[in-house]
C-alpha cells in the first residue's frame, strides 16, 4: 500500500517541485505557440540554457492559435505567433500582452515548370494564379513579365496549405494588398477558402506536390524553401523590382519601419513594403509576453530577449535562414521589453 501511495504521489511531487522551482535556483519558463519559428526558438532556448544557468525555457510548437489560447487560459508564461493577436483575443487576456518581434520570415512562391530556371511574378499574377483565373504557364501576362523564359503550354496547379497556418496568413495578407479581386473573393486568414487547386499538409506536403507535379506552384516558408533548395519565384515589389526572397531582401522589408512599429506596439504587417530591394511577402514573428510578470520569470525573460535580439542570437537566426531584425529596431524592442512590470 505504501508503495502504491508513493507511486501515485511521485508525479505530483515532481510537478510541485517544478512549479516551486521558481523559488529555487532554476527558473522554468513555459511557452507555446507558432511552429514557424520553432527551429530558431529551440536553438535559442537550448543555447541560452548554457548562457544563463538560472533559467530554462521550455517551448512547445503547438501553433499560433493554440499558443494564444493557452496564454489566455494562463497555462503558459508566454506565447508566440506569426500574426498579431486580434482585438477579440486581446480582450480576453488578463494583463496586456506585449508583441515582441524576434526574427523575420518570408513566404516563398515555389514552382515546378520544366526548363524554367527563374521566374518573375507580380502580386496580381500570383493572386490570379491562386484564384484559378490564370490557368496556363504561357498565359500572356506571365510571358510579358518573363521575356527570356520558355514558358510551356502547361496547366497551372496551385497548391495551398490544407492545415491552418501562419504561412497562409502572411501569404493571403500580401495577396489581399496586391489584388483587389483576391480581397473580395478570398480574403485573408490562417485558413481560407481557396477557389482553385489542391491542399497539402505542412510545408513538406506542399513541396512534395510541387516536386511531383510539373506545372504545380505553391507557397512555403522561406526557411523551408532555402534548406531544401526549391526553385522560387521573384516577386515584384512596390518599387517595381522583381526580388527573390533572401535574408537580406526580407530584412530590407522591415528597414525604416521603426517609427511605425513604435506607434503600433510592434504590431505591424510588413507585407507589400515600399522599401527598395525589399521582398514583398515578408513578416515578423512575435513572442507574446504578458506586460506583468513575476520578478523571477520576468527578469529571466528580459535577459533572454536582450540576448536573443543581440549579436549572438541574431547571428544564429541568420544561420538558419531567418532574416535578422534591423539593428535600430532590435534596440527599440529590447528597450521596451526592459520596461516590463515586475512584481
Amino acid at each position, binding site marked *: 500500500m505504501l508503495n502504491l501511495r508513493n507511486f501515485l504521489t511521485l508525479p505530483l511531487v515532481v510537478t510541485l517541485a517544478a512549479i516551486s522551482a521558481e523559488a529555487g535556483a532554476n527558473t522554468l519558463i513555459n511557452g507555446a505557440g507558432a511552429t514557424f519559428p520553432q527551429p530558431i526558438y529551440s536553438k535559442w532556448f537550448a543555447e541560452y540554457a548554457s548562457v544563463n544557468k538560472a533559467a530554462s525555457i521550455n517551448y512547445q510548437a503547438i*501553433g499560433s492559435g493554440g499558443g494564444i489560447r493557452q496564454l489566455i487560459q494562463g497555462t503558459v508564461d508566454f506565447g508566440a505567433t506569426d500574426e498579431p493577436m486580434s482585438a477579440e483575443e486581446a480582450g480576453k487576456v488578463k494583463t496586456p500582452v506585449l508583441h515582441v518581434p524576434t526574427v523575420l520570415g518570408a513566404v516563398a512562391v515555389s514552382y515546378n515548370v520544366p526548363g524554367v530556371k527563374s521566374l518573375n511574378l507580380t502580386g496580381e499574377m500570383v493572386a490570379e494564379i491562386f484564384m484559378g483565373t490564370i490557368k496556363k504557364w504561357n498565359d500572356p501576362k506571365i510571358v510579358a513579365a518573363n521575356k527570356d523564359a520558355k514558358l510551356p503550354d502547361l496547366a497551372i496547379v496551385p497548391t495551398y496549405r490544407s492545415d491552418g497556418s501562419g504561412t497562409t496568413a502572411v501569404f493571403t495578407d500580401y495577396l489581399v494588398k496586391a489584388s483587389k479581386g483576391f480581397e473580395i473573393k478570398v480574403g485573408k486568414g490562417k*485558413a481560407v477558402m481557396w477557389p482553385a487547386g489542391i491542399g497539402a*499538409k505542412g510545408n513538406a506536403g506542399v513541396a512534395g506536390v510541387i516536386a511531383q507535379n510539373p506545372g504545380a506552384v505553391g507557397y512555403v516558408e522561406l526557411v523551408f524553401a532555402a534548406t531544401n533548395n526549391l526553385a522560387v519565384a521573384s516577386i515584384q515589389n512596390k518599387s517595381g523590382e522583381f526580388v527573390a526572397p533572401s535574408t537580406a531582401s526580407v530584412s530590407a522589408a522591415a528597414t525604416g519601419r521603426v517609427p511605425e512599429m513604435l506607434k503600433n506596439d510592434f504590431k505591424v504587417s510588413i507585407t507589400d513594403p515600399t522599401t527598395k530591394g525589399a521582398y514583398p511577402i515578408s513578416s515578423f514573428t512575435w513572442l507574446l509576453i504578458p506586460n506583468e510578470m513575476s520578478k523571477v520569470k520576468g527578469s529571466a525573460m528580459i535577459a533572454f530577449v536582450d540576448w536573443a535580439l543581440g549579436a549572438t542570437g541574431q547571428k544564429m537566426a541568420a544561420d538558419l535562414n531567418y532574416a535578422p531584425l534591423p539593428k535600430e529596431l532590435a534596440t527599440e524592442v529590447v528597450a521596451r521589453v526592459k520596461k516590463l512590470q515586475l512584481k
Partner: protein
Amino acid sequence: MASSTHDVRRSDRAFKRGLQVAAWAILALFGALFWFLFMSAKPAFDAFGWQFYVTKVWNPVLDQYGALAFMWGTLVSSLLALVIAVPVSVGAALYLTELAPRPLRAPVGFLIEMLAAIPSVVYGIWGIFVLAPFLRKWVQPFLSEHLGFIPLFEGAPFGLGMMTAGIILAIMITPTITAITREVFRSIPDLLREGALALGATRWEMLRIAVLKTGAAGILGATVLGLGRAMGETMAVAMVIGNRADISLSLLKPGATMASVIANEYAEAGSDMHLAALTAVGLGLFFVSLIVNSAARAIIWRVERTGS
C-alpha cells in the same frame, strides 16, 4: 478466524466496488465525451442550425460553415475503400482457411495482420511519395484520357485526391476485414463442408455453399467494422486526399473528409465559431461511427447466436 472471513468479505466487496467503478467510468467517459462535443459545438448549431449538415460552404474568413462536403468525402473515400478491400480480404481469408498449404496459413495470416500495426502516418508518407506519383504517372492519365467521359474519372490527374485516399484506406482496412472473416470461416463446422462434398459438389461449389453462404452475415459484420475504421481514419487521409471542401463525382478530384478537416484546421482555428464548427463536424463523425459500429455489433451478435 471470524475476523479473517470478515476481512475476506471486505476485500471481496472492495474488489467488486473497484470493478464497478471501472465499468461505469467507461460509460461516464462516453457521456462526458458526448457532452463536451455537444457543448463546444453549440455555437455552430445556434448559428447554422441543422442546415450545418446539408450545406457545403466552408469559409473560415467569413465564418461560414457547412459540413456536407466533408460528409460526402468521408462517404465516398470509405465506400471506395470497401469496394477494393472487401473482395481482396474475403479472397485472402478464403485462401488462408480453405486452400493454402497448411504450413503457409499461420505465417501469411500473421503478415496480413501485421499491416494493421503500421502507423497511419507511415501510410500517409508512403501515399505521398510512392502511391500518388505512381497513380499520377501510370494509372490516372489512362483513366482520364480513355474513361474521362464517365464523371467518375473526369479531370486532370494530380496524384492526390479521392482515389489515392480510397486506395490507402483500402490497404489499411484489409487486415481488419481479413482477420475477422478468417475467424468467421474457421468457426464454420467441417460437417457442412464434408456434407457439401459428399453430395457431389465441386470444391468451388463447396466453398460457395458451405463457406461463403454460411459466413455471409459474418463477412458483412467484418465489412462494417472496416467501414468504421475507414471513416475515422485521419492522418493518412489528410496527407493524400488533396483537402478541398468540394463535392465532385470524380475520383481524380481532391476532396476532404470529416476527420481530415478536423486534423488540418483544429490547431490553428482562429475564431471561436471556427472551433465550434470543427467540433460540430466531430460530433457528426461521432454519431456516424456510433451507428456503423452498432450495426457491426448487431450483425456479429446475430452470427454468433445462429452460427454455433
